[in-house]
């Protein structure tokens, strides 16, 4: 089908995406659109450098491939270049979303009815503090083809659909925003969440009325499951992405396998083949995903790789080379990352805190050595019970210390299937998961 140039490795990644969006703000429809985009990335490697091109015209892929090959310097022994040897060769078609569950079959009317149902049930304009509200639905269906000069031929699909309802409350001239979003792979499962949206609406209204400013300092913190998911992703997940440590002896020594990096209670895993938001049938270099235990009982046991990082560090592929879309180069990214649950309840964990902070929900986080999370809803814990809502700006901790400070891991693991991870200018759908956990010390501002 494609004539691959001699003496070079090359791969072609074609994507066909169809998206739809329907959003409403204060009763007015702000967006009602459908889009369809096809495009391809062509990569050529000569053992020293990559040459890549992007096109929307799939009839010109061969021309693009030949043009890139002309820039490269062929190597007769290209098959034995370490990174090229690493690339897996699969011939497979994995279409999980082309049957009755295909979101492309969802009509505009069905999307509008779903969202209008939630608006009718959950937006109460008689609440005097409610000044603005937003509701939206979006969906995406993507078919990816992958062909390589080593013989890989893969066709896979992916889809997401979801909705959100968001509220702006104003109390004493201060706005508080909060709401609920649901995202998944099955349109039918988006129905029936009205009470969860209403619970969240009422929680943020209560927060708007009663939250007090926190006194900055170090606190014992209990993280709700969704927060633990982000904590897992930010505090350690990014340090498990091996592309940051290549040819860096300091980091290779710091993150050596078998090193104790956290308390015995901490086990963290990444797995791309779970049907959550970070699902992949194959990564964007054609590698099948693995279940990769990054930490087992506090001991460093694995890290995430693309072919280059695995070849450089002499480790096994994990299937974590991912690209935002056909316009971007793949790099090492998380997929579905979770902290393994423990065996005690959420209530028992909170009961063990005399004075601390319960972090209920967060907006976003960052993953340097000092990781951060920006909460949008916290509560004081006094004498083992939740007390007044707290306004907290940012939670920070050090990856080198905090994993050792985890002294309780709950049995209530939840997946957060609404996360998007940013790295080097690329946004990637991921899923984070974890149970309620307790951390002996985090810095609160």
């Amino acid at each position: 089908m494609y004539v691959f140039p001699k003496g070079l490795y090359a791969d072609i990644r074609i994507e066909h995406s169809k998206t739809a969006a329907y959003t409403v703000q204060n009763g007015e429809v702000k967006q009602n659109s459908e889009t369809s985009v096809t495009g391809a990335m062509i990569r050529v490697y000569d053992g020293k450098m990559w040459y890549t091109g992007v096109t929307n015209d799939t009839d010109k892929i061969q021309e693009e491939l030949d043009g890139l090959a002309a820039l490269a310097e062929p190597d007769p022994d290209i098959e034995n270049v370490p990174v090229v040897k690493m690339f897996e060769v699969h011939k497979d078609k994995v279409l999980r979303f082309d049957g009755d569950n295909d979101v492309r079959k969802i009509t505009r009317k069905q999307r509008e009815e779903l969202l209008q149902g939630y608006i009718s049930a959950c937006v109460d304009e008689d609440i005097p503090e409610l000044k603005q509200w937003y509701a939206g639905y979006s969906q995406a269906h993507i078919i990816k083809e992958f062909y390589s000069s080593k013989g890989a031929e893969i066709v896979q699909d992916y889809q997401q659909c979801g909705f959100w309802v968001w509220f702006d409350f104003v109390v004493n001239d201060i706005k508080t925003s909060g709401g609920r979003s649901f995202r998944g792979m099955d349109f039918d499962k988006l129905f029936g969440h009205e009470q969860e949206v209403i619970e969240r609406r009422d929680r943020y209204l209560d927060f708007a009325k009663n939250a007090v400013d926190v006194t900055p300092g170090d606190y014992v913190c209990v993280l709700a499951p969704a927060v633990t998911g982000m904590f897992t992703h930010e505090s350690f997940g990014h340090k498990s992405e091996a592309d940051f440590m290549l040819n860096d002896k300091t980091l290779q020594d710091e993150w050596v396998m078998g090193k104790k990096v956290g308390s015995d209670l901490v086990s963290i895993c990444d797995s791309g083949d779970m049907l959550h938001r970070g699902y992949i049938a194959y990564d964007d270099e054609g590698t099948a995903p693995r279940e990769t235990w990054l930490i087992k009982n506090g001991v460093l046991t694995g890290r995430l790789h693309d072919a280059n990082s695995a070849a450089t560090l002499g480790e096994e592929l994990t299937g974590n080379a991912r690209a935002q879309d056909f316009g971007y180069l793949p790099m090492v990214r998380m997929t579905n990352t979770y902290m393994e649950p423990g065996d005690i309840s959420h209530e028992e964990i909170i009961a063990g805190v005399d004075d601390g902070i319960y972090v209920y929900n967060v907006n976003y986080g960052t993953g340097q050595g000092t990781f951060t999370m920006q909460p949008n809803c916290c509560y004081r814990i006094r004498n083992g019970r939740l007390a007044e809502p707290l306004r907290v700006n940012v939670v920070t901790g050090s990856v080198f210390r905090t994993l050792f400070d985890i002294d309780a891991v709950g049995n209530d693991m939840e997946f957060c299937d609404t996360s998007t991870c940013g790295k080097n200018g690329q946004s990637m759908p991921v899923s984070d998961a974890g149970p309620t956990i307790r951390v002996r010390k985090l810095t609160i501002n």
Partner: protein
Amino acid sequence: MERELITSRYLYRSVKIKETKINTFSKDERTDRSFRVYDGEYAGVQFVQGMADEEEQFAKAAENLSLKRPYKFALETGTRHRDKTERGYTDRELMDIAHEAVEYLKTHHPDFIISGEIYVSTSTKAIKNTLGLDLSNTDSTLDIEIAFKHKDSKDIDDGWFSIGQRDFDFKKFTDMADNYLTNFTNRVELPEELIIQEQYYGYLGKLNECLNAENMALGTSLLSGRIGEKVFADGFTLTHDVSDKETWFTPFFDGEGVVQPNDRRVFIENGVLLSGYADKYTADKYGVPHTGSAGINMTDIPYNGYVNLRIERSEKTVKELLDGRLTVVPIIAAGGGFNDKGEYVTPIQTAMLCDGERFIGRLPEFAIKGNMFDMFGRDFIGVGSDDPVFNDKQILMRMQYSK
């Protein structure tokens, strides 16, 4: 029925650097088009990326009138074309600059592991309609973005710097690299008085939200009900500025084809709030001034939100504004930000002590706090007339240390 076509064309060629080596040469060229038809009451919109027959796409846009996307406003007219391109770069020239940059960093700063990208990008945005509107804006730069990590550091990276220029001057790049890397391992103490020196775009996000005329009308903005009041410092003037001087890929027209007189609109003058920003719909709905602030929405009707916010420069240089005082320049400040009350807190993972022009040494990790009304009010020192450190405009303001 009138027709309108919005085109966004993007050309990009890049050389990527990994572990202080040239790793990848990439090229990308894409054209997005939004075909739009108007019947006086509604707009029909059809988005296409890549090749497509124009008549077919306009026909699909006409079909989409059935979605009843409201648009009752008169379309714009007028002709203007602006091209800010100063020079072009061949693939060979780009590769040569990349090799020269990597070689310079390897030779002069061998203790750092470097990654990043050197790229040439050219962007054209255009809008035309059957009433005679014909506007286009083109800009092109060569940018170098460098992330650095000291070989002994245990963090993923230690910092970054970037420089974008229309006519690339290698000396400006090496000056910047030397400034960031030469004293990076020189550890210094935090100064008692905390004066932040930084490009200001990141601090304007909250103000952008607050100036949205809809938020102001509905009471969800911290600036609601304060038009005509002095809200910030005397020296604080905030404009939407897409003039030749301040443009940086930003078109001189908004998503409805509206052009501002002199390419400029003042929202806050000498600390006094004049108005929020509004597209035609928002202005009509809330009875507020129309400020030509429609964002380009390629897939649907415009949204309110196109502002290129600029704080007016002082007549004094950064050094003159500082008058002998030292500043703190955040290099990595990830996390935190403004809360709903307008309070700002963020941890600073990497920062340098600076005399306004040259870095003196690296500071320990700390956190800063402030409040929007103080940062642009009593604690606002100014935006210098010159561009040291960043090759771009920068704010000077006092802030406080936090936990």
